[in-house]
């Protein structure tokens, strides 16, 4: 995300209502500055072992300029280009209490990084995302993950009229949708063993330009998949004084796939404990009480493992981890979730 730094006016900016056209909008939108395809999910192996995973592809445009023109003036190296691709791969071994992660950065040269326009086809080095049927692959050394994803609900478009607001400024928004419930099957090679795995995943696809206000330092994001067939997405943008940007919001996705936007006054999220990273010394919130009175939800969200921090070299480090979801009153299991915490190590600029 260090690569996502830019300040320019010639990018396409998410300011107006947007009508998604699928499957074309699953593909890349290279005129926007930042775009990502985010997979998180919970997998179970045949032997009963449980894993959380994250595979994410980023696209960042360095500067809104005509590559062809730059090549004419400066030269024709194939390594020249305005798009940079990155990808993160993380695996939470719930039974073993271990967390593994890897990163890749690439540009278009030699086809090392690519994101197709009009169809779902993204790759960074050997890691790839293709559709449809949707397949996902990531590998690092002896750890590999190859999955197929079957959407159980249509894309859930967040915000209002295809515009998802992140702050008070004109450009502080993105176009954002999720596959909130994917049936996942595939193969995981881990710790010397190849395991057949299956489970449930969540996919986010989001793109925009200059999305955050300068006073926003990062965000807390969570996706909860409830056993009753509903899903909840919450996106909180933080300011340096730890207050929440009033434009922050969420979505409740009903059993039938209908999306109910939630404004900040319709839910509360309270951090109930903290965890200090040994690697980055960042202090993260570590469990939450989530209330959505209008949906009769009062939940405790707890990480399955404290250390699910991605310590990265080419982007700011962040925490992204699998969580349990339990009823606050009865402590009964209500589902599973994933939480993302950014901007605790250094400020994130989008």
């Amino acid at each position: 995300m260090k690569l996502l730094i830019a300040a320019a006016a010639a990018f396409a900016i998410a300011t107006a209502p947007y009508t998604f056209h699928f499957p074309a909008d699953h593909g890349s939108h290279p005129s926007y500055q930042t775009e990502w395809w985010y997979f998180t999910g919970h997998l179970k192996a045949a032997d009963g072992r449980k894993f959380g995973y994250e595979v994410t592809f980023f696209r960042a445009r360095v500067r809104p300029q005509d590559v062809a023109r730059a090549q004419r003036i400066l030269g024709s190296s194939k390594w020249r280009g305005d798009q940079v691709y990155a990808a993160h791969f993380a695996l939470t071994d719930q039974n073993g209490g271990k967390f593994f992660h890897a990163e890749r950065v690439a540009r278009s040269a030699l086809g090392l990084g690519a994101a197709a326009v009009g169809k779902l086809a993204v790759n960074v080095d050997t890691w790839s995302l293709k559709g449809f049927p949707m397949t996902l692959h990531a590998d690092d050394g002896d750890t590999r993950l190859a999955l197929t994803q079957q959407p159980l609900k249509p894309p859930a478009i967040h915000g209002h009229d295809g515009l998802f607001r992140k702050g008070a400024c004109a450009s502080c928004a993105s176009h954002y949708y999720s596959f909130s419930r994917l049936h996942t099957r595939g193969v995981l090679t881990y710790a010397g063993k190849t395991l057949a795995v299956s489970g449930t995943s969540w996919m986010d696809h989001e793109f925009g330009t200059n999305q955050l206000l300068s006073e926003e330092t990062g965000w807390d994001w969570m996706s909860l998949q409830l056993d009753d067939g509903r899903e909840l997405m919450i996106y909180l943008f933080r300011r340096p004084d730890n207050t929440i940007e009033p434009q922050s919001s969420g979505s409740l996705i009903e059993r039938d796939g209908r999306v109910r936007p939630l404004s900040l006054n319709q839910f509360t999220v309270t951090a109930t404990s903290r965890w200090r990273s040994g690697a980055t010394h960042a202090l993260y919130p570590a469990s939450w009480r989530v209330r959505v009175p209008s949906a009769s939800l009062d939940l405790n969200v707890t990480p399955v493992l404290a250390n699910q921090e991605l310590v990265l070299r080419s982007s700011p480090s962040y925490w992204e981890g699998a969580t349990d979801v339990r009823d606050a009153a009865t402590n009964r299991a209500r589902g599973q979730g994933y939480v993302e915490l950014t901007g605790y190590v250094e400020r994130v600029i989008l």
Partner: protein
Amino acid sequence: MKALLTLFRSLVLGYMWQNRLRSFVTLLAIGLGIALFVAIDLANATAIASFSSNVNIVTSRVNLQVLGEGRGFDERTLLKVMRAPDVVQASPVIEDSIVVGARQGDPNSGEILRVLGIDLLQPLPEGVDVRGNTSDPYGLMDGRGAIVSQRVVDRLGLHIGSSFAALAGGRPVTFTVAAIVPRTVSAADSSVVFVDIVTAQELFGKVGTIDRIDCIVAPQHLAQVKAALGKIVPPGTRVVEPATRTDEVRRLLRSFQVNLAAISLIALLVGAFLIYNTVAISVVQRRAEIGTLRAVGATRRQIFAAFLTEGALFGVLGSFLGLIFGYFLARLAVGAVTHTVNTLYVGTHVDRVLYDPRLMIEALLFGIAVAMISAIAPAVEAARTQPSRVMGSRGFEPRMTRLAILLSLGGLLLLGVAYILAQAPAIDGLPLFGYASALCIILGASLCVPLGVIVTARLLQNLGYGFSSAAMLAAANFGGTPRRNSLAIAALAIAVAMIVSVSVSVFSLRATVAAWLDQTLIADLFVRPMGVSGEVYDARIPAKIPERIRALPGVAAVDTFRGVEIPCRGSLITLARTDFRTIGQRDWVRVSGGADAATLARTLPGTTRVIVSAPFAEKANLHPGDALVLDTPAGPTSFRIAAIYDDYSNDAGTVMVDQRTFNRLYRDDSAGMFSVYAKPGTDLNALRTRVIRAALPLRVEVQTTHDLRAVVFAIFDRTFLITQALNIIAITIAVMGVVSTLFALVLERRREIGVLRYLGLTIRSVRNMVLYEATLIGVLGGLFGIGAGMLLGLLLIYVIDRQAFGWPMHLHVPYWPLAESLLLVLIAAILAGIYPAQVAARIATADAVRAE
């Protein structure tokens, strides 16, 4: 043990303090010897380290490299390598150089910075931070971002975001400082500039290619991966472990290093002679004391141990002194060595000396060992002293004549051995037998010195009717203490021999090179990209530029040259492109073996028949008609050697191939440099200006034959500057030896001199007597030195340099410079007599008579 300590204190420490001047001189001598040894080793180690650090600068975990030899290879190879099993990481690298601060007309004005073009999006070296920088720090789109070392930033007065001008392959270019590499990361070589692969490819005309791939491979599968990659990389590339290339460079520098080391060892040998001398004098002077000690119960073993410890003490103190000197000397030497190394071999930059503690400890132990070995003989003699000879009034030296004859016979025998050793071939490219032969010459000549002393003394005494009494006395004294004088003379002779031999061989090489340049530098102008130094042909001038210059008025012809560095037999050689059609007409090359120039011009163009440089032929044992297989981008190619040609420009080896063949193999018709022949009567200065203009936008350096000759000799003289410095140090040590010997002799003869004074010898005569003796030492040292030096010189010219560097040359004696330096040695020896002469002159008659 306690007895030994007491003995040591009374016999050694007290004495050393009483004779502190001589002790100090001895310490200084061994110190200088060790210092030279340390400095040269440190300087060499640093030069090598700075080269290998460049390999490891991005990450030290790189354990396999794909190298394009002399030419980049298709960038798509990267993908194949990345996808190979067990390759954890594969990073593309472009290697090239830029020049900062270059001025037209001054070829030495610029500093060459090595450029590594890497994928800057990948994680950077630890400690290099680009956070908080502008939106496109690497110039992925429209900038020329560079990551520069703190040293370069300081030198050029830069900061993050500021720009600096440079020349890339002769073309002006502006870089922006995107980040700074802190000193902690830049290791020994701070001249490396990192740029993005885009910048490097476009700037150096390498679009679509890369020069090397740095791989991190699972260590347990290294061998398999290496073999597997070998099958997928294109021809003209090879897969090696990083150490291989460092080894090749090390090998390239080896002859140069070993030669310097040999010279520093000779300096140490002179120091060893001095220690021997000092301990021997102290034994002779304290014979009475030793006798007394033996009489009161000191054992032989204790006496032996005490004197051996004296030697060891000199060794320890002197070596420590040497380490300190060496530390500072290394700073000076490292500049000289790297300059030479850069000029002759590879470009690196060294900021600071790497002090290798292992090397320092080795030098320390070596110094102590040499000192103790030097002290063994005198210590044995001390131990032999009989308790009964209590009060010998004078430390008589035994009658030496028979011994001197025996020693001389031994010396002659050693000279014979030296001759036999000189016939032996090099071992693995190193003239080891040659060095052994040199040692035999030095020892052999030294062993002949005592007889020389005795014979000289007799001759002078027999012929000396017309001499003054002081001269007669000097001659008698000279012959009376042959051993001590012999030692001083031998030390002086070794130093003189060193000067003579080095001067003779350097002068011979210089004369040979001059003759060679006369025959080969016959073009009128030499053109190369500005800021690209001497022998490096791998800059790329597009073929259209020499074409353009060929069409200029006043130009008769243009010859282009281009060279690529490729591995061959564990070292690196240059494969150079040339136009064989002109070999007969313009005679730029002097063929010394195989077919003649006219035949070559007729038969070589377009073929794979080549000519190889004499040093290469000598070292690789190649002859006309032999086949030579080299890796080229077209795969392993077999070349046939048609002839050998003389080349003194470097000892690494050059293979010249016809341009059509080269262009076919390398698909590259650019030039590294070219030479211009003017039509008769053309104004060369005006032509020079026209050439500079015609080459634009390429900035070129145009030199006339005269300029180029001057540059060649400037490089030559700088290269041998370090050997001249060694000479001066050796002679300084030897002159110190003369001082200490004469001083000891004077002290020993106190009573005798007192009596002579009593008998009416004037102060002036006493003083002259000592000065005459100094003169005798100087003359004899000079004569023996010249004799041994000429032998060593011949050995250097015909055996050592030939085997080490492959440079055939002929003897040229620099009569006047030699005569001057000999005169200097003689004057130095006489000057060395002045202080002892003063001391002798001050000896009071009364004291001496009272003692008598």
